[in-house]
């Protein structure tokens, strides 16, 4: 059976109907170890002879600055923030991912629509609205989800940043006035959303508590099997 190109309505004006590249997504919360894994995968794939593009959320030039500015002052409504993140995602999808996939690259995406959806659903967004909103997103070939216990994330956040970030602790949704408490509750809620999506979108769940090397081997094996199967 031919794999579906898009999740929903797609991009009706797109002339490219086949994308020979491969889209591999690494999902998971902040401090789950995504970027480390992606850096190692990139090196491995390039040595193997594959052309690789690594890209992540919030790296586009289009509205990235607006998001940054607005978050500083916490002045954005929830729907506005959703749409800005979606704009940013669409910009990267159309201007980076699709051209790379059309050219036969392996694209390693550091997070994809699932993180955006999880964050918004925790903030009360309608799931149907979000699914339709991201209906222009390409269906990835592989989606890895780095599963990490919120308690572990907490300690990683401390050792990485020295303090807890307002947004990554979900302080904007007033789960608790206490940042530490809020962080735990927020990440429990996010984890529930990711788990809910696991079945629906076919995440490959990998244990993000494993050491870097072990985790890398697990992911490489799965990618290898996938690439050889093609």
């Amino acid at each position, binding site marked *: 059976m031919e794999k579906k190109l898009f999740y*929903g*309505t*797609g*991009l*009706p*004006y797109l002339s490219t109907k086949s994308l020979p590249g491969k889209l591999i997504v690494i999902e998971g919360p902040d401090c789950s170890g995504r970027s480390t894994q992606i850096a190692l995968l990139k090196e491995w794939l390039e040595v193997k002879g594959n052309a690789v593009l690594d890209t992540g959320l919030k790296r586009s030039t*289009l*509205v990235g*600055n*607006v998001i940054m*500015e*607005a978050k500083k002052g916490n*002045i*954005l*409504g*929830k*729907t*506005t923030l*959703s*749409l*800005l993140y*979606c*704009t940013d995602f*669409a*910009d990267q999808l*159309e*201007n980076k991912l699709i051209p790379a996939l059309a050219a036969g690259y392996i694209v390693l995406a550091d997070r994809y629509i699932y993180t955006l959806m999880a964050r*918004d659903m925790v*903030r*009360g*967004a*309608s799931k149907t*609205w979000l699914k*339709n*909103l991201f*209906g*222009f997103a390409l269906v990835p070939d592989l989606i890895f989800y780095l599963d990490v216990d919120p308690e572990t994330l907490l300690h990683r956040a401390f050792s990485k940043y020295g303090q807890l970030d307002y947004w990554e602790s979900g302080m904007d949704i007033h789960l608790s006035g206490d940042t530490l408490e809020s962080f735990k509750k927020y990440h429990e809620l996010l984890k529930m959303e990711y788990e809910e999506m696991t079945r629906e979108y076919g995440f490959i769940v990998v244990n993000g508590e494993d050491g870097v090397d072990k985790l890398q081997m697990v992911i490489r094996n799965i990618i290898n099997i996938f690439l050889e199967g093609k």
Partner: protein
Amino acid sequence: MKKVRGLGLGKSYSGKLFVVEGCDGSGKSTQLYLLKRWLEAKGYVVFFTEWNSSVLVKDSTSKAKKKNLLTPTTFSLIHASDFADRYEKLILPHLRAGYIVLCDRYKYTAYARDFARGCDPEWVKNVYEFAVKPTVTFYFQAPLEVSISRILLGRPQLKYHEAGMDMGWSNDPIESFKIFQGKIKNNYDAMIEEEGFTVIDAVGSIEDQQVIVRKIVGEKLARYKAPYIPITG
């Protein structure tokens, strides 16, 4: 009280929302301005807002347009972000507080333009699902030649996106603008029934049009109670 849908939150509003829609050059802004003057003279507190004016998004919108790196989807989403910002901060709070809100262009402008640029209509409608249906949406309908000649008369230089040059329909800005406006008009016409537009013949005199607009708005305000405004100073 009408139900409000926004990110899963059920809220209702007691204000009134009047919207003008139509092609560039249809005269809708003039009509809305006259309506505003009339309502204010009657003592109502009126909140006015227009398309593409959110302070937050404005900068990046114009930057992106200059660089010409927008696709139909990002073009649509960046305008939706701009609208959502005004909607969440200004439009909805005023409606919930019971005020009269006047909008020069609303989500239907996005529908008409985004459909013309080739976005999926159902997708666009979903994007704007958070925005409530107005009390009345006036659609100022004019023959294409009329609105185009009004615009070209006042503006010798058409902007790149305004003329739809990004779509590659024609290398001539004026020709491209005509094609674009034609598509937009067709999209508006097709929405009349589904979205329940009140159609105003935009070829009539300004005065005649305003009489009709005021009559319709007046009827909608027959049982409207303005929120209490404390008198100061």
